[in-house]
């Protein structure tokens, strides 16, 4: 039995005892295995790990301080642990972002700063025991009025999986400097995390 040079497909050699049925079986099984591996790889790209969590809704956030926003509603969850756990189970390059819709509570003075920050602790590779680095993305706006405030921010990071080491839980903080008004983060807000590629070969 010999094999083709690229894909390793079997074919009988000149010295093989003739059994066409067995040769055909080997070829069928090898092609089956090779194609299945290709399909699996393609599906892993078409259906990457993704997690989207909605906010529970947080009323009456104070001004002048960072307010922690929590997300408890599962919108999408594939390739992650159940529930709200956002631990990465696969290595790769990920994109993460947050969308915040907040509403003024009461009348606001003009030109009010509102901002959102998104951060995650990434273990130091290859020595995660030594600590972590915190990646952060921020976005802030200046807007008056009593309407809804809409903000996004995002970050992209590489993560190399290490057994037993989690990159930590993403942290979202909301900040505003309203005078005479609080802000409420609405339950239409969400955080998302999606794998966009494997790590470089």
């Amino acid at each position, binding site marked *: 039995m010999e094999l083709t040079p690229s894909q390793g497909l079997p074919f009988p050699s000149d010295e093989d005892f003739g059994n066409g*049925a067995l040769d055909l079986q080997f070829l069928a099984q090898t*092609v*089956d295995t090779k*194609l299945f591996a290709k399909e699996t790889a393609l599906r892993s790209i*078409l259906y990457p790990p993704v997690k989207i969590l909605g906010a529970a809704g947080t009323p009456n956030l104070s001004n002048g301080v960072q307010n922690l926003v929590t997300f408890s509603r599962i919108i999408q969850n594939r390739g992650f642990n159940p529930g709200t756990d956002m631990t990465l189970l696969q290595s790769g390059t990920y994109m993460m972002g947050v969308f915040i819709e907040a509403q003024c509570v009461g009348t606001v003075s003009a*030109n009010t700063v509102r901002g959102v920050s998104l951060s995650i602790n990434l273990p130091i590779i290859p020595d995660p025991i030594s600590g972590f680095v915190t990646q952060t993305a921020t976005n802030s706006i*200046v807007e008056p009025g009593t309407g809804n405030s809409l*903000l996004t921010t995002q970050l992209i990071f590489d993560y190399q999986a290490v057994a037993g080491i989690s990159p930590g839980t993403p942290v979202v903080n909301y900040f505003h400097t309203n005078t005479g008004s609080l802000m409420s983060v609405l339950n239409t807000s969400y955080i998302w995390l*999606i794998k966009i590629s494997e790590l470089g070969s």
Partner: protein
Amino acid sequence: MPGFTTHYGFPFPHMLTEVVDATNWKNLSEAIDVQMTNINTLANQVKFPNVITAVRASSLALTLNTLTDVTYTSTEFQNPAGMWTSGATITIPEAGIYYLSGFARVTSTTVTFNKILFTTTGTGLGTFGPPAAVNHSSSSSAGDWLTNATCLIPATSPNWTAKLQVLMNGTGSPNLTQAGLSIVRLSLI
């Protein structure tokens, strides 16, 4: 009694009771052909995700304090899948998780803030959130404003729509000079 492979059921003759003939080859080749076609379809979905880039290069007058749709012309597009035909609305035919990015450049005398929005409609998006929207804005000044925004949309049903809107708040006569909306599928759903 023929055998079949594990994953795709490719047929092959029994090694003791059957003699290979042309039909055995034909059956195996045809079965492989079907699966290779299916895998080619998957490969094309990976290589060519739904994508569109709509760019407006001509000016558009804005009404103060009013959301204005950014419209496009057929000469301002990368539109390989035909997801835009006219006006401001882009229709995405396939469910999936999409990444949206947009920008707008506006000249104005004085504004107090500006904003761009992605407004989406479609089955399933209603349970996801409001018209998914993002914005940036700035403090009062006159001049040339460049605003950008990004968003992730999990569209659970096909034929959802998206458009880019611009809002200027303040005084004067703002004029949109450039704008663009790009949409790319990151994942099937």
